[in-house]
């Protein structure tokens, strides 16, 4: 670089102060520019939200949608004795509860409370399934009747074969 070029650069630097290079927008035009930048930014955010929304919709196709597997859960004698029995269905990670209602009907539900996933237990006095964590209560149709839960418990279909009880299917929770 020769001295003449260096001199010319020096001239430019002298005519354009550093703050002007850092802030090239006039006060009057500041709003004009920032609104455009904001609209661009929000539209990009809008695109990301659409992607997230479709990802949620797609995820529903891979979520556990119930089971049709068959599993032995216990005997009718133990259910008669205790009023309810705990079992795991369809996998060992899924706690469930079977209850013999006062009317003699056999029902079973996932033991996982739909509020914050505590385990519900059979409450004979309330004739329902009680969640001790936040005092949620479900009736024996699995519907929430008291406390914070708003969604029903997942129902497990049972089949009685003589003295033995089998779980034969589970609805999606």
């Amino acid at each position, binding site marked *: 670089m020769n001295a003449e070029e260096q001199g010319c650069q020096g001239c430019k630097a002298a005519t354009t102060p550093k703050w002007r290079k850092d802030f090239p927008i006039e006060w009057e035009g500041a*709003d*004009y520019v920032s*609104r*455009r930048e*904001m*609209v*661009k930014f*929000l*539209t990009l*955010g*809008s*695109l990301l*939200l*659409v992607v*997230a*929304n*479709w990802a*949620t*919709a797609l*995820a*529903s196709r891979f*979520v556990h949608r119930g089971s049709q597997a068959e599993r032995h859960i216990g005997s009718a004698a133990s259910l008669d004795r205790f009023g309810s029995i705990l079992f795991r269905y369809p996998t060992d990670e899924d706690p469930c509860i079977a209850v013999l209602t006062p009317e003699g009907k056999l029902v079973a539900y996932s033991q996982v409370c*739909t509020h914050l996933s505590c385990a519900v237990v059979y409450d004979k006095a309330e004739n329902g399934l009680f969640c001790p964590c936040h005092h949620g209560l479900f009736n024996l149709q699995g519907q929430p009747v008291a406390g914070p839960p708003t*969604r029903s418990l*997942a129902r497990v279909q049972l089949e009685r074969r003589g003295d033995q009880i089998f779980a034969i299917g589970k609805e*999606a*929770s």
Partner: protein
Amino acid sequence: MSLRRQGTTLFSAMLAFVASAVVLQLWLLTVSVEALLGGDYKTLTPAAAGSTALLLMNAGLLRYVFRFDRDVG
């Protein structure tokens, strides 16, 4: 009022509209996640479609901004 000043007013309104649409999309996403966890799958696709419609509106407005700038020069 100059064209540039009119543009500033117009884009303020547009910005408010786009911001409202994004808030609505956020709400739709919240509802979708809640529905997914609750096993209510039938609401997911309409929510995603609604969110896409809002994106298209936002994109249309952004395109208008670019065209306006190009025309005004």
